[in-house]
């Protein structure tokens, strides 16, 4: 109660000052717009649009085009054939009992997406909640938030590889557990396993969940929470009826980050899984290495479609634009 109150009183002088500045700012801008040619906005958007066109749209178009080409070991030839897509889904619809490579690969990827999403959401939400509602002063909030970002000062490959000496057969975890007599033989599943991959992914990407959720939480009007308490809501009811609905956009944005990154990840899965676990990225990489560009392009397009579909599904749940 007292903490919400404090923040509220602090906020008052700031908000009282805003309208004056905003009003004068609006007046100035209105005068200026009449002098501005209509194409200025386009000009302002042009650099970014150009960057997008050159480095995103064009390569994407090229990828789509190449995915319909023919190839040999040493050349790719313009054509319009669907064989690459047929190869991607080779054996998928033949009705055999075993799953085809592509479906098995996507299934394994989806498994990691689900595990990592649940874990990062739980950890990310908790961390953001703590920072936002339990830490009382702004400087402390900023300081603790910076602490969360410290691991990101090193490259993510290094953060991932540092797990290896910890989890290995003769690693720190195994030696400690053996030292205190909890286990007799080293745990083999700690490294080069699904566990290791999930652990590393959660470790790498939790911050992508923390930041947008924290951002959404900070915008919650404390008066709403106070009102919930006054109306007799329990802590849990406040959480589920007030806080969670209001941080939905943050959750969705964080989820988009995590889901898209994990779907396309092949480095973490490769290193932590000892290259024994398939990922779509790795399939594409080995095809590129063997100069099979068209089938690699077809795989990339399928991957893109899967990711877009996931994002579309998530955006259906929350209208981010409205909430922002």
């Amino acid at each position, binding site marked *: 109660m007292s903490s919400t109150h404090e923040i509220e009183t602090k906020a008052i002088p700031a908000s009282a000052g805003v309208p004056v500045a905003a009003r004068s700012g609006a007046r100035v801008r209105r005068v200026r717009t009449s002098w501005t040619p209509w194409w200025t906005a386009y000009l302002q958007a042009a650099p970014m649009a150009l960057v997008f066109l050159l480095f995103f749209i064009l390569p994407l178009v090229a990828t789509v085009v190449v995915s319909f080409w023919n190839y040999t*070991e040493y050349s790719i030839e313009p054509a319009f054939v669907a064989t690459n897509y047929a190869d991607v889904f080779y054996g998928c619809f033949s009705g055999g009992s075993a799953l085809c490579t592509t479906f098995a690969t996507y299934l394994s990827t989806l498994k990691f997406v689900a595990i990592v999403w649940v874990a990062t959401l739980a950890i990310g939400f908790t961390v953001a909640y703590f920072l936002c509602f339990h830490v009382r002063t702004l400087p402390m909030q900023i300081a603790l938030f910076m602490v969360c970002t410290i691991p990101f000062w090193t490259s993510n490959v290094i953060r991932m590889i540092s797990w290896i000496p910890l989890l290995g*057969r003769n690693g720190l975890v195994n030696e400690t557990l053996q030292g205190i007599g909890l286990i007799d033989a080293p745990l083999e599943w700690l490294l080069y396993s699904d566990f290791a991959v999930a652990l590393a992914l959660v470790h790498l990407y939790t911050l992508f969940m923390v930041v947008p959720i924290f951002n959404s939480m900070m915008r919650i009007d404390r008066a709403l929470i106070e009102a919930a308490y006054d109306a007799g809501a329990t802590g849990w009811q406040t959480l589920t009826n007030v806080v969670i609905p209001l941080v939905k956009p943050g959750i969705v944005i964080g989820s988009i980050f995590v889901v898209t990154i994990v779907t396309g990840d092949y480095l973490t899965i490769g290193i932590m899984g*000892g290259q*024994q676990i398939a990922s779509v990225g790795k399939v594409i990489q*080995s095809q590129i290495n*063997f*100069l099979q560009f068209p089938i690699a392009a077809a795989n990339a397009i399928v991957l893109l479609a899967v990711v877009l579909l996931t994002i579309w599904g998530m955006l259906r749940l929350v209208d981010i634009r409205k909430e922002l």
Partner: protein
Amino acid sequence: MTRTTQFSVSRRSLLAGGAAIAGLAATAKLSAFPTPAIAQEKVTLRYLSTAVNQSPAIAEKAGADLGINIDYIAVTTDDVAKRVITQPNSFDLVDTEYFALPKLLPSGNIMGLDAKRIKLADQIASVIREGTVDGKTVGLDGTAPSKVLYLPSEQATEFAGEPTEFLTLIPTTYNADTLGIRPDLIDGPVDSWAALLDPKFKGRAAMLNIPSIGIMDAAMALSARGDLTYGDKGNMTREEIDKTIGALIEAKRAGQFRAFWTDFNESVNLMASGEVVIQSMWSPAVTAVRTQGIDCKYQPLKEGYRAWASGFGLPVAINDREKDAAYEFINWFLSGWAGAHLAKQGYYTAVLETTKEAMEPYEWAYWFEGKPAEQDILAPDGKLLEKAGATRDGGSYDERMGRVACWNAVMDENIYMIRKWNEFIAA
């Protein structure tokens, strides 16, 4: 261009170390080829290959002896082939593996080297030219260099059936690969490729995740175990590929493998950390584990070795001036010093006679004759490799190269094979 500049800067900074080697080299027989009298600035050769083959000392020495600038372009094995095919104007000299040739040659981007302009062409090791060691034919499964060495004409895009005046690649380095083991963590002897799939090493074996090489190691293991016989391990039929991958999937599901690796350093780490006690390995990786003070052996096996060879090729797009310089550089490369430099890292070289002349007798005896080292064996950078008394794993050149069973290869069914390999990884 920025890239090139960066390389020369870093090379310059390495010259301090290289100077010692250059000094050593002064005692060796100097190149007999005259420095060309060019009024223009020094000619620069853009040398495309993997980083392993790019010794700063060789570039430095070539610069001093020939007045040619060597600009290294370092990429991975797969990227060498990719670059030859997709960016044929971006280099003047390529050092690539023979097994890439069935892909590179039809692209029309590389051309033959004129044997008449290579002074020591007829002294190139017989294992490369004819597939023989000491008069005896070695195993030629896969893309053996002798099968892809000759071209009917300079710009041909198909191989010649018999020896001609035009060579696809002039060998730089070659060697015979086998399994690496940790003798301190293994009970009993390992003498067969079958050990790779032996349940005794369940959860402690590793394989290469480079499909074209990995599948050959698997084929060596399966045929050693007597499960399968192959017509040509380096050029399998679809049925052979299916059976091989089937057996690999079975082993993987049974938990045979701890990990797969693609990068040389990964294999070093797997071995040094004890995660893996037996795996397909490359010779410099074994050396790297040993320099950490960890016992690691490049174990000779009764079925023989899987060999590889790498060599110089020329891009079709090369200019005359660079072409002359490239021939000059290749001739210099074969003349002894460069070969000795590479041989001291464990590689075999194109012209054994000149390599021998450029090495100390005790070094030659250790590296090529399989004799115990009379004194400490040092790497070219002066680091201690082996103490006096040690012998090389696998023995002499004749014993090692003479027992080659197959060569790194690209199969006719390569596309199918990669699809099956991905199935194996996903299983």
